[in-house]
């Protein structure tokens, strides 16, 4: 997988987490996964199509999800509250949106679909026929995993003027 496609996501996660939680996230490790996807906690998936196609899963341990929901809501949030899932989706939206902005401004064009909470069914699909790069970030509240599986289609790049992507 091309590192220039992954780098913006690392930067975006760090920027968004720093901005929203007033803490820093450090990369603890980077691994490659080819097997089916296993959730670590609460996860949101964002898919995209176009010159770059694939999906990204933002997966966080329940403690981190609750802490982030609390930060975002400006108040303590019950772990069972639906707001926690919403917060995970919104965080994924921000991280991926910021990274996609950087990629698009570098000339990669693709359409992003709204984030969804990752279900078990999507989990199985997410792990099929795709090699993923998995980054584990450490935050003061626990681990956040960014699972990135995407492909760059150079041919679509050359045909960019005829491809209808946003």
């Amino acid at each position, binding site marked *: 997988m091309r590192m220039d496609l992954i780098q913006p996501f690392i930067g975006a996660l760090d920027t*968004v987490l720093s*901005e*929203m939680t007033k803490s820093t996230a450090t990369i603890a490790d980077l691994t490659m996964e080819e097997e089916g996807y296993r959730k670590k906690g609460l996860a949101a998936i964002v898919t995209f199509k176009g010159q770059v196609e694939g999906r990204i899963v933002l997966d966080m341990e329940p403690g981190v999800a609750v802490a982030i*929901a609390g930060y*975002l*809501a*400006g108040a303590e949030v019950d772990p069972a509250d639906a*707001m926690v899932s*919403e*917060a995970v*989706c*919104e965080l994924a*939206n*921000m*991280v*991926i*949106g*910021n990274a*996609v*902005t950087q990629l*698009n*401004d570098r000339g990669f*064009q693709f359409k*992003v*679909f*709204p984030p969804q909470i990752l279900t078990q069914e999507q989990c199985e699909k997410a792990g099929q026929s795709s090699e993923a790069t998995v980054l584990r970030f450490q935050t003061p509240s626990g681990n956040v995993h960014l699972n990135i599986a995407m492909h760059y289609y150079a041919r679509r790049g050359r045909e960019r003027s005829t491809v209808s992507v*946003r």
Partner: protein
Amino acid sequence: MKQFEALTRKKDHQPVRYLIVDDSVFARKSLAKMVESFGGQVAGEAGDGCTAITEYTRTKPDIVLMDITMPQMEGIEAVERIVQEHPDARVVMVSSVGYQDNILAALQKGARHFVQKPVKPDALYEIIRYVLNDDGVTAPVGARGEN
């Protein structure tokens, strides 16, 4: 949350009324808190572009805060349709996806400004002041709702 000098409508000194459009309930709540800290009032909410159009007609807000990526109808199309029917509509795009093409498309369809998520309250406040232009005035914190 930090409290700002209340932004009111110049014509009647009433709070500025907002329509908040975002498919994320969480994002809507977060923006609602922000506009309340500006002394504003949430006139309506919508989770997609279609609902935004009907809510605009129903609530006639002073400002629309509009997400881009939404189900059913995306924000840019919703802006176009709102501005076609209501040329004076003041729409501010609020999206995590902030690339040039998107911003240009939104501005060409009639949006007045663009702000990228995560939204910083100070930045949004200044943008709203700018978009309201002469139709908005500020009052010191504590003087809200007074004529």
